[in-house]
C-alpha cells in the first residue's frame, strides 16, 4: 500500500488502561484510503478495545486518533456525528434488533440520520439486501434467519449509509467455515464495488489470507508487526511466527502452586 496518500485513519501513541491494567500500549498505525487492514491477535490482546477507540466508543488514556484529519479524541458526541455517519460497523454478534424486520433493521440508520422519504429508504434497503444476497428477505425477522444470513443482514445495515470506512469485529466468529468464507467473499466484493476502507478485527488466519491488504499483529496491547501477509509470514519475530504457524504456548506448570490450587490452598 502506498504511503504517499494521506491516511484516512491515523493513530498516534494510543494508550489505554482498564483500571491499573494497560490494555493498549503506545499504538501507532496509519490506515490508507481503500485498503483492507486486518487487526490480528490472540484473544484478550486488545483488538476489540482498539476498534472501540477508533470508532470513538471509548476515550483513550493518552494519544490521538485522527479520522480524515480530525482528532476524534477531542470531539464531543455531537461533533462526532458527521464522522460516525460515514462509518459502518459490523458488530461481532450482528446486533440486529430482534423485534424489527430485516428491512427495518437496515433502514434504521437512514431513518435516524437522514431526511430521506420512506419510499426512497425502502428502495435503498432493497438495494442493500440485494448486495448482500438477501433480496426478498426484508419482511423476515432476524430469528427466522440462519447465523450467516444474520451476518449478511447486519452487513447490509452497516453499509446502509454508504460508509467510507467499514469496521468489522470478528465477522466470521461463530460461523461454519463455508459460511465464513462466504462472508469474507462478500466483504471483498463490497470493497471492490464501493472502494471502501475496511478495518477487520479477527483471529481467523484463513480470513486474513483472503481479504487483507495489510495486517497489524497485536500482542499485549502493542503492534508487534505490520505489513502484508507475506511480510509477516517471513518475519523473524518469534511471536509472529508462533501466530502464523499456529504453535501453542509451551505448558508452564509450577508444581507447588498447581498442587495448592487442587487442594484449595491459596498462595500467600
Amino acid at each position: 500500500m502506498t504511503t504517499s496518500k494521506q491516511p484516512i485513519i491515523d493513530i498516534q501513541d494510543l494508550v489505554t488502561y482498564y483500571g491499573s491494567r494497560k490494555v493498549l500500549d503506545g499504538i501507532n498505525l496509519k490506515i490508507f484510503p481503500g485498503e483492507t487492514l486486518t487487526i490480528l491477535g490472540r484473544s484478550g490482546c486488545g483488538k476489540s478495545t482498539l476498534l472501540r477507540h477508533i470508532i470513538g466508543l471509548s476515550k483513550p488514556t493518552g494519544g490521538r486518533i485522527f479520522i480524515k484529519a480530525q482528532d476524534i479524541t477531542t470531539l464531543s458526541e455531537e461533533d462526532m456525528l458527521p464522522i460516525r455517519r460515514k462509518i459502518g460497523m459490523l458488530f461481532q454478534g450482528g446486533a440486529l434488533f430482534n423485534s424489527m424486520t430485516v428491512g427495518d433493521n437496515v433502514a434504521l440508520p437512514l431513518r435516524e440520520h437522514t431526511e430521506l422519504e420512506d419510499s426512497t429508504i425502502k428502495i435503498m434497503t432493497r438495494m442493500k439486501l440485494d448486495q448482500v444476497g438477501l433480496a426478498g428477505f426484508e419482511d423476515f425477522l432476524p430469528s427466522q434467519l440462519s447465523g450467516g444470513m444474520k451476518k449478511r443482514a447486519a452487513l447490509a445495515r452497516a453499509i446502509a449509509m454508504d460508509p467510507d470506512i467499514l469496521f468489522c469485529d470478528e465477522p466470521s466468529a461463530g460461523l461454519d467455515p463455508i459460511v465464513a468464507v462466504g462472508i469474507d467473499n462478500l466483504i471483498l466484493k463490497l470493497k471492490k464495488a464501493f472502494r471502501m476502507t475496511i478495518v477487520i478485527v479477527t483471529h481467523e488466519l484463513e480470513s486474513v489470507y483472503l481479504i487483507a491488504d495489510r495486517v497489524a499483529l497485536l500482542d499485549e496491547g502493542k503492534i508487534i508487526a505490520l505489513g502484508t501477509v507475506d511480510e509477516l509470514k517471513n518475519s523473524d519475530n518469534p511471536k509472529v511466527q508462533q501466530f502464523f504457524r499456529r504453535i501453542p504456548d509451551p505448558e508452564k506448570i509450577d508444581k507447588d502452586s498447581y498442587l495448592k490450587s487442587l487442594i484449595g490452598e491459596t498462595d500467600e
Partner: protein
Amino acid sequence: MELVVFEKQNAAILKIVGDVDLYSSPQVRKKILALMKKKTENLLVDLDGVSYMDSSGVATLVEALQLMKKRRGKLKLFNLRPAIRDVFELSRLDKVFDICEDENQAMAAISEG
C-alpha cells in the same frame, strides 16, 4: 448541488450538477415530483455534472423510473461519467435503466420507443 430543467420537444431535461448524496437526494426527488405534476411526458436526466452519487441518488432515480412507467412515460439517463456508470453497474441497475451516451441519443431513444 444545482438542478436545471429545460424543455425540448416532448421531454423535460433535468441537468444535475454536483454530488447526489444522502443530503441532496431529497432535492432531486422534489424536483422530479414537480415535473411529474406538470405532466412531463418524458424525462431525460443529464448526469454530466455529477461526479459522486450514492445509493440514495440511485434510489431516487429508481423512484422516478417507477413513476414514469406508471404514466407510460420514458426516462433516459445520459452523459454518465465512468464512476457513476460503475455505481449503476454494481447495483445491476444498468439493466433496469436506459443509459444513453448523450442528449441526442437520449432524444432519439424516446422517439424510438
